[in-house]
């Protein structure tokens, strides 16, 4: 067994929360620069200009990129030969609480009915996958409420197939319109079950915006969906233009012979995530 100290994990998680909320990932920045150059509407171009300026300012001042620093989502790949004295959940949660406090990040978690703020952004939402070996990888995502509210899961009939999937996704983005801070990024989970489809949909958002899916068929599907969604003309912040969506990331999983689960996780342009490995 390899022992990893809880304190080391907490320190790395705290650092990651602060850094991800103040530094726009390079791949997202490249898309903003591309949009600023190529967007067809003046209003859309101006939004990209502001977003680039916002990113520079956030990096300089350490103010968060967006005031909604999100619920803190963690994807953990935990080697089966790793031992964390005190427990990995606790280590991550403590790191998150410290990061949100020391980084002056907004605490956005509340009781669902009483609406009372939990005060420290807990609970951290932690997904753990056990993998062979003695390594540990933790990915953090700050997921804002505005884009999360526009996400949906549905159970299609198998006969609806790819056409049904495309229709649902395009319709979803159309209905969301300006609400989730477009240009958006779409994480699409196809297959699995009622709870598994949204899980893989959101995890797909960890991929780089400019990567190409290793399966050429899926890569083609992603390109097709991206083009279909961008035909909507919603544009940056809903002001019209060709950049409604920056990227579509699809994750597939086998499903029941009776089902075709589909999850659309809408991510805003403020796509904040980072990872750390031990």
């Amino acid at each position: 067994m390899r022992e990893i100290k809880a304190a080391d994990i907490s320190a790395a998680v705290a650092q990651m929360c602060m850094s991800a909320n103040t530094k726009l990932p390079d791949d997202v920045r490249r898309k903003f620069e591309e949009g600023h150059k190529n967007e067809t509407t003046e209003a859309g171009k101006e939004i990209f200009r502001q977003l680039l300026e916002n990113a520079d300012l956030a990096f300089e001042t350490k103010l968060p990129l967006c005031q909604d620093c999100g619920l803190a989502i963690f994807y953990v790949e935990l080697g089966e030969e790793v031992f964390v004295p005190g427990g990995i959940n606790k280590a991550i949660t403590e790191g998150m609480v410290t990061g949100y406090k020391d980084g002056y990040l907004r605490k956005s978690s509340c009781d669902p009915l009483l609406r009372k703020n939990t005060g420290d952004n807990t609970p951290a939402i932690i997904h753990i996958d056990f993998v062979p070996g003695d390594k540990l990888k933790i990915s953090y995502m700050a997921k804002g409420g505005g884009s999360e509210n526009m996400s949906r899961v549905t159970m299609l009939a198998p006969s609806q197939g790819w056409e049904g999937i495309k229709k649902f996704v395009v319709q979803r983005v159309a209905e969301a319109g300006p609400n989730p801070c477009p240009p958006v990024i779409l994480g699409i989970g196809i297959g699995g079950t009622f709870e598994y489809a949204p899980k893989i949909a959101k995890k797909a958002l960890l991929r780089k915006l400019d990567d190409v899916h290793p399966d050429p068929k899926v890569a083609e599907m992603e390109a097709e969906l991206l083009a279909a969604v961008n035909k909507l003309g919603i544009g940056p912040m809903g002001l019209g233009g060709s950049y409604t969506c920056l990227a579509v990331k699809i994750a597939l999983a086998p499903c029941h012979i009776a089902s075709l689960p589909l999850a659309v996780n809408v991510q805003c342009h403020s796509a904040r995530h980072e990872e750390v490995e031990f």
Partner: protein
Amino acid sequence: MPTYTLNTPLTDSDIDKLRSGDVVLLNGIIYTGRDAAHKRITDLLDAGKPLPFDLKGASIYYVGPSPAPPGRPIGSAGPTTSYRMDAYAPRLHALGLKASIGKGKRSDEVKKTMQEHKAVYFGATGGAGALLSKCITAAKVIAFEELGPEAVRELTVKDFPLLVINDAFGGELYAKPKLDD
């Protein structure tokens, strides 16, 4: 695109000249309020109690800022999605609220009451909270402190950059999604 520099409180004649698509640089005092604060304000109205600020000519900014780091009046402070306040907005417009500031679509009912009571809906750039905070020169909590980020704050803004999304004449700035069917 016409650009106006306006001071709060806003008047009917300010509202009369605005059309969707206009740029407005807003100056003066505005109030923050989002989901929980709107619920509290409505409760106060129901109970016939005074509100934390005068609604006449007021502008409400739908925002829950991040905490102010040392040396700054406020943290990041961009708009939140407005439709969640649609349930409360008509009543506030009827009582004199002249402008709300947020992002995203409004309901038909809100748009109708803005026409009836001469009011506008401004859009600020979502996800540009660090940038927008530069135009906020002072901030203080004036009510519901226990709501944390959702407390009502009085903000002093200088040339706060806004777009008129819905004017008082039925105008709409947002692009209509092009769907085939």
